[in-house]
C-alpha cells in the first residue's frame, strides 16, 4: 500500500514555535513580502472567526480585527520538515516528499518490520511526534492515499481498501484535484461538486469539454494510475553559516560573506571531494523571520567561483537585513570528468596536426564500418521551431 503523511499548515506551525501562545488565538501566516497579499495557513481559532487560508489580507482583517499575523519562517519550516523526514527515515521508512507537509511512502517494507500495516502507520506517526498534528492515509493508489489523509483527523490513520475506493472517493470535494481555480468553477457550473460525480461521467466527454487537465482529473477521481513511490536520497548535511554582529543590508558585504561561506562549505571534510548539484542559501532576518532559496546547478560543480556566481543574484531577493547567512550543500554527486574542447584546438593554426590525425582516424572508421558511417551536420533551416528540421546528417565520404 501507499501511505501519505500530511501535516496541513506546517509553515504556520513552524513559525508558531517561536510564539506558541499565538496558537490558541486567531492567527495566520502573513503574506510573503514580495507576493500577493494572501494569507497562508490559519489557526483553528482564526478559522472559527471566519478567516480562511488564501483570503486577502484586507478581507481577513475586516472579518477578524484581532487577527495576529505571524511572520513566515521559510527556513525554519524547511528545517522542521527535514527533521520530520529524517525521523521517518530513522524509523526505516523510505519517504518521497511531495511538498512541504506532504510525503508518501510504501508500506510493504515496513509492515514486516513493525508487524502489520496499522502498527507501521502508528510508528510513522510516533516518529513525527505530537506537536505537528500529522495524519496518515493509506490506499493502493497515491491519489487515494492523499484523499484518505485529507479526511483523517490529527494523529489518526485512515486505510482505504481497493474494494471500498469508489465509495470512499465519491463524497469528497473536487478541491482535492490538482486543477486551476477556473476549472473548479467550470465544473461547479455544470453541477459537478464531488469526486463521485466527476468519476461517473464518461471519460471522453470530460476530455472533450475540459481538455487533458480534465481528463487527468477524471482519472484521479476514479482513483488515479498506479504509480510507484520512490524513497528520496537523504540530503547531505554540509553547511556553513555566518552570524553578523548587527543586521546587514549592504549587498557588497553580503556578497563577501557569501564568498567566504562558499569557500568554507566546499572545504568541509564531509564533502569528500564530491561535486555540488543542489544548494540552498538561507538567512535569518531582522524582525524574526527567515528566508531560504534553493538552486540546482546545471552541471555539478565544486568550483567556488561558479557557485558564487550562481548564488549571488539571489541575495538581491532578500526582503530584509540579515542577521545570519547560511549556505547548505543540499545534494552532492560523485566527482566526474569534464569534456575537453576538441574543436577549439583544431581551429587554431597549431591544430594542423590534430586535423591530419582526425582525418586519418575518420578514414579508418570509414574503412571498417563502410560508406555513410561518417557524417557532417549541415544546417538547412536553423530558424525552424522543430529541432529535427534544423539540420541534416550528410554522409562524408572523402
Amino acid at each position, binding site marked *: 500500500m501507499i501511505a501519505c503523511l500530511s501535516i496541513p499548515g506546517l509553515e504556520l506551525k513552524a513559525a508558531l514555535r517561536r510564539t506558541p501562545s499565538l496558537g490558541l488565538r486567531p492567527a495566520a501566516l502573513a503574506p510573503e513580502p514580495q507576493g500577493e497579499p494572501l494569507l497562508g495557513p490559519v489557526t483553528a481559532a482564526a478559522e472559527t472567526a471566519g478567516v480562511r487560508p488564501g483570503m486577502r489580507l484586507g478581507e481577513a482583517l475586516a472579518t477578524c480585527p484581532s487577527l495576529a499575523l505571524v511572520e513566515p519562517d521559510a527556513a525554519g519550516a524547511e528545517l522542521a520538515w527535514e527533521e520530520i523526514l529524517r525521523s521517518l527515515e530513522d524509523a526505516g521508512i523510505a519517504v518521497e516528499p511531495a511538498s512541504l507537509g506532504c510525503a508518501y511512502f510504501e508500506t510493504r517494507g515496513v509492515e514486516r518490520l513493525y508487524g502489520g500495516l496499522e502498527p507501521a502507520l502508528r510508528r510513522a506517526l510516533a516518529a513525527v511526534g505530537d506537536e505537528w498534528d500529522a495524519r496518515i492515509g493509506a490506499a493502493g493508489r497515491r*491519489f487515494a492515499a492523499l484523499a484518505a489523509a485529507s479526511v483523517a483527523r490529527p494523529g489518526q490513520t485512515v486505510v482505504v481498501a481497493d474494494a471500498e475506493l469508489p465509495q470512499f472517493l465519491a463524497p469528497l470535494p473536487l478541491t482535492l*484535484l*490538482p486543477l486551476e481555480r477556473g476549472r473548479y468553477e467550470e465544473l461547479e457550473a455544470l453541477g459537478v461538486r464531488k469526486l463521485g460525480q466527476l468519476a461517473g461521467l464518461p471519460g471522453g466527454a470530460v476530455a472533450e469539454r475540459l481538455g*487533458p*487537465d480534465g481528463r*487527468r*482529473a477524471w482519472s*484521479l477521481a476514479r482513483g488515479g494510475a498506479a*504509480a510507484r513511490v*520512490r524513497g528520496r*536520497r537523504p540530503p547531505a548535511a554540509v553547511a556553513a553559516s555566518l552570524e553578523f554582529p548587527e543586521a546587514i543590508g549592504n549587498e557588497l558585504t553580503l556578497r563577501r560573506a557569501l564568498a567566504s561561506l562558499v569557500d568554507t562549505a566546499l572545504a568541509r571534510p564531509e564533502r569528500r571531494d564530491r561535486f555540488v*548539484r*543542489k544548494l540552498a542559501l538561507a538567512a535569518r532576518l531582522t524582525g524574526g523571520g527567515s528566508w531560504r532559496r534553493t538552486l*540546482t546547478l*546545471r*552541471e*555539478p560543480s565544486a568550483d567556488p567561483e561558479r557557485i558564487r556566481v550562481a548564488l549571488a543574484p539571489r541575495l538581491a531577493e532578500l526582503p530584509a537585513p540579515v542577521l545570519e547567512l547560511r549556505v547548505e550543500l543540499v*545534494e552532492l*554527486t560523485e566527482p*566526474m570528468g569534464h569534456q575537453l574542447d576538441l574543436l577549439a584546438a583544431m581551429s587554431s593554426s597549431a591544430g594542423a596536426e590534430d586535423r591530419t590525425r582526425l582525418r586519418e582516424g*575518420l578514414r579508418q*572508421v570509414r574503412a571498417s*564500418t*563502410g*560508406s*555513410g*558511417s*561518417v*557524417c*557532417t*551536420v*549541415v544546417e538547412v533551416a536553423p530558424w*525552424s*521551431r*522543430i*529541432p*529535427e528540421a*534544423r*539540420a*541534416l*546528417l*550528410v*554522409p562524408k*565520404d572523402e
Partner: protein
Amino acid sequence: MVAHSRGSGSAGSQGRVAGRFNVPRAARVEAHADGTPLEVNHRRVALVREEWRVVDRWWTEEPVVRRYFELVLEDGENTVAFHDGAGGWYTQRGA
C-alpha cells in the same frame, strides 16, 4: 560526426542520403497530474528548468503540437523531453 554503422544516414553507391539530425526518441515518462515529468526512462527528475510549447505546421495534415520540458535528472544529466499531445513522450537533443 560518426554515425551508427548502416544507420539512417547511410549512403548507397549511387549517392549520399542525408539522415535527420536530433530525431526524437521515444521515452518512457511518468508525469505529475499537471503533465510535468516525474521520471524519464526510469530516472527521477530533479528539476524542471524550463517549459515551452511548439505549435507548427498546423496548415498541413501532420501538424506539430509539442509541450517541451528542459529537465535535470537525479543523476545530473540534462535532457529535453516533450509530449506530443497524442499520448507519446520523446526525448530530443538540440531543442
